[in-house]
């Protein structure tokens, strides 16, 4: 991408500036961008799939401890976080809708809301983690939770930290992406005519949300 456009750039100029030489037209390029993101999301899915498989294997090995561990987790916080993320997926999707309707200011504030919700998720996660730390619940060899001293409980919480931690890292990357998207919308670079990058970024955000939807029952509901 070269120099930033102004609000007054014509459609043709946008096309010429944005169209990569390998694509015959802009529609194809946008389709390729979306398709590429879907393929990348498949790889992300497999990343977490391995972890889910690990969880299943250890749950079979330690059924009671895992159930007890789930009980111990803060259901209220976890469920709140789930709703926070679901709403944030809604806000980002609605932002795209607003862009299509040529209401970029509304779209911008929706993106800001998405960012705020994402940050809120991380804050709640932080509260949860510190709650665990206060009880002596740490991953691996640092685990010191007297109430549930067994190997299985330790494994449950270690997996909990690793999987939610990896998810949180993806959230932070996602936040970075949405912040960048908000800036692009603010500058008018993503607008009614062209907002493929917002769509592609939103796909990533939806994946991060989707993964949480699976983590939530594994760690909070199946007691």
């Amino acid at each position, binding site marked *: 991408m070269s120099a930033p456009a102004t609000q007054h750039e014509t459609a043709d100029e946008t096309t010429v500036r944005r169209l*990569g*030489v*390998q*694509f015959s037209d802009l529609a*194809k390029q946008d*389709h*390729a961008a979306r*398709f*590429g993101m879907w*393929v*990348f999301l*498949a*790889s*992300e899915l*497999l*990343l*977490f*799939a*391995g*972890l889910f*498989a*690990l969880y299943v*294997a*250890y749950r079979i*090995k*330690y059924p009671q401890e895992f159930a007890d561990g789930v009980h111990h987790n803060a259901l209220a916080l976890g469920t709140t976080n789930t709703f926070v993320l679901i709403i944030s997926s809604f806000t980002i999707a609605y932002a795209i809708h607003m862009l299509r309707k040529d209401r970029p200011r509304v779209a911008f504030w929706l993106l800001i809301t998405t960012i705020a919700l994402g940050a809120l998720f991380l804050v709640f996660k932080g509260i949860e983690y510190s709650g665990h730390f206060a009880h002596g619940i740490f*991953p*691996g*060899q*640092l685990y010191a939770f007297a109430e549930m001293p*067994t*190997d*299985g409980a*330790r*494994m449950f919480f*270690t*997996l909990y930290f*690793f999987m939610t931690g*990896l998810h949180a890292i993806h959230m932070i990357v996602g936040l970075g992406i949405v912040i960048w998207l908000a800036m692009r919308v603010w500058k008018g670079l993503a607008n009614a005519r062209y907002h493929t990058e917002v769509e592609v970024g939103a796909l990533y955000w939806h994946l991060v949300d989707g993964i949480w939807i699976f983590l939530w029952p594994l760690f909070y509901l199946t007691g």
Partner: protein
Amino acid sequence: MKNYLNATHGLRSWLLTKDHKRIAVMFLIAVLISLMLGGVFAMVLRLELLTPGESFLDAQTYNQMFTHHGVVMTFLFMIPGIPTVFGNFFLPMMVGAPDVAFPRLNLLSFYLLVVGAIIMLVALWFGGVDTGWTFYTPYSTSSESSVALAVFGVFIVGFSSIVTGVNFIVTVHTLRAKNLGWLKLPLFVWAIYATAIIQVLATPVLGMSLLLVAVDHAWGFGIFDPALGGDPILFQHLFWFYSHPAVYIMILPAMGVVSEIVCTFSHNRPASYVLIAISSLGIAFIGFLTWGHHMFVSGMSVFDAGAFGILSMFVGIFSAIKVFTWTATLRRGRIRFTAPLLYFFGFMFLFVFGGMTGIAVATSSLDVHWHDTYFIVAHFHFIMVGGTLTMFLAACHYWFPKMFGRMYHEGWALVGAIGVIFGFIFAFTPQFLLGNWGMPRRYATYPDQFQWLNVTSTAGATILGLGVLVSVVTLVYAAFRGPVAPRNPWGSRGYEWLAPTPPPVHNFDAPLEIKRGPYDYHQPE
């Protein structure tokens, strides 16, 4: 004549290029360096193994050497090799496109490989990693060497692989020229496409397993540590879930090269296009279901052993279909004997032999004896070197004129090929016998009786190394001093040969119009 090589000048124009051809050449340099480095480690190992006891390496250093050899060869040569060089250079041309779908991602993939490789090599070299490229727990997680950093390097290299895979899949789906349907694609494209699917789906699982090893090692997470309630066998499951499909990442592109070379040098259509295309996908799919055959003696249940065994046999069937089809393609052809064809001949013998020994080790009861012995080492080298390396070198020769606009010296190339093929046979056939005899792998010292077979193997390895060296020197020399090549020296019907030699920056002078299939030798070009 302006072409991609001389269109712009200066180091920056290369290091920041978005041209898939320049990126391919940069990958070629990286991959060749890795091949040489891995080869040096191999020679060090083989020299040490000339004597049963310790000669110039102590056991600890030896153990680090075989780890270096495996890690470098697997992650920096075998997996990226053909896709990043020839896939990058020729996939867009073969679909009639001016570049890949995401050129900047392509460049990113290159830098991910370089950065990952540096981290990996620094960790291996200075950190004394000796776990073998398989990083089995709990040895890897309890070792004092820099395992966490090394696997982090591999993680980044894996990311490079995923990015390449995404790029290639999208390119094949969205950038085909007008009228270029799936069934008119060159078979090399099918091979790269199937490989890319594996790269995208399998590599993340490796990344995740290595990440777990890293946190186990660095912070004592204990996910695979029995003392903390973990299960070391689970690591093996996760690791091999990637690493078995990984070997298909290594061989499928090589098979794609075979298809191109066989058709070009026999001036003939493939005996059955559809069977080869479907077999590529079949191998990719079934390859995901066979990982347990690496774990027959780890205490797995009899049922699992049976299931993994039979599934492993199925993969062999797809490979056999391809071999049969290639042989049939030669029939009634008009065969031109060149270095690439000689490599192909070597491939046919070595790959089939290696593949059949794969069927043999999938036979669970036999694997109990062979597992973790030199039989296995011989088996996978027959496929990786006899299969992939021969075809990598073949591709280097076959596409050399198109890439660099010059011809290599055929005589020296044949010398190199003969050295590679015969050196290989002497290097690795004795290892089958060593395995039968009972010599385990990863042994720095060994009982005396195994010596003479080891000496033979080292002699063969030396010839193999010289053969590779001769081939590489021949090509490097030709890149600068070879005679200028015509546009299509082989008379191939492949679409990439329609472009000028070397190609211009956007591959074709005018948008490509596909009016025929890629193997229509019965029609004039």
